[in-house]
């Protein structure tokens, strides 16, 4: 990496978002679809069965070291849900937004909190609000609402109103 790269805002890792997107597609041609890639951003959708492999590859080979956010999107009419991950690489100064689609009648996905410890509470919160179960999570319990709560408030079919 030369001085030019530094001037253009590249991190010491030296990979732009375009390069990372290209690497991901070459490694997982069936499972990763790139929506958009710029110098500092990668937008992609990942198939559910390959998700843990993609995450491990991103951590080991592409220097992604921080899970910024995990959240969900409820598509009630399409009968599906999204899990949206924002994973950042400090070395490359790239944030990847990865979307994994789940069918609404089987809301289970592999947990990445064994790869990045910071995903632990994010995944618990996503479970709390959407009811998405993260398999392999060390402690898959509610975090913001008390134990014994029998609803998931961020789902589209949740009826609001006073409960306490």
């Amino acid at each position, binding site marked *: 990496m030369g001085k030019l790269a530094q001037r253009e805002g590249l991190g010491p890792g030296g990979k732009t978002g375009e390069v990372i997107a290209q690497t991901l597609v070459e490694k997982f041609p069936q499972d990763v679809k790139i929506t958009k890639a710029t110098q500092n951003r990668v937008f992609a959708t990942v198939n559910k069965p390959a998700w843990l492999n993609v995450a491990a590859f991103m951590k080991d080979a592409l220097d992604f070291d921080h899970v910024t956010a995990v959240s969900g999107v409820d598509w009630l009419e399409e009968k599906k849900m999204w899990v949206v991950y924002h994973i950042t690489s400090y070395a490359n100064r790239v944030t990847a937004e990865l979307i994994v689609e789940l069918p609404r009648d089987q809301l289970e996905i592999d947990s990445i909190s064994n790869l990045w410890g910071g995903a632990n509470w994010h995944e618990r919160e996503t479970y709390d609000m959407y009811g998405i179960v993260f398999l392999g999570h060390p402690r898959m319990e509610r975090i913001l609402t*008390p134990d014994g709560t029998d609803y998931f408030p961020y789902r589209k079919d949740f009826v609001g109103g006073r*409960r306490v």
Partner: protein
Amino acid sequence: MDLRLAPHAVAMSAREFVAWSSDMMEQLMQASGGKKAVDKITAPIWSWALRNANYPLHFGIACCALEMAAASGSRFDAERLGMIFRSSPRQTDVLLVNGWVTAKLRPDLRRLYEQMAEPRWVVAMGECAISGGPWYDSYNTVQGVDTFIPVDIYIPGCPPRPEAMIDGFMKLHKKINKEMKGTFLEG
């Protein structure tokens, strides 16, 4: 004294005897008017002492806690009025609830209230603590602290300024002064 004339005195354990004798003492003081006389002398002193040293619990929940911090800072200096924030419920007189109370927090707040020693007061600061405020009809926010703790003073505002908070405590001082509680031989 012939013990055969008072057999129950012999049958008492030491603890029973202390309870019995202190009970007798209290009844004697009440019947003779001694308690009333002592209370009349001491109640203004207790009241003055309570007013000038009502320590709130240092328990910040939400954005009103920033106003609480500003009130205890050098600009407003709530400490000159006896409001010294203490971090243990055992050392405090006032439970200052400053923020929304979620369903998960409610049992802990109730427990803090019960851990505080008598006499104790509760001040609800801000709209959330009074009625739920912006979280009206929320699925997880308790609709007002007074649904599970008796509240003495309400300070409205979203959030109330430090002056308003200090004014609320001045109202509490008036209330303590009005109660004028004599506590001789109580407790």
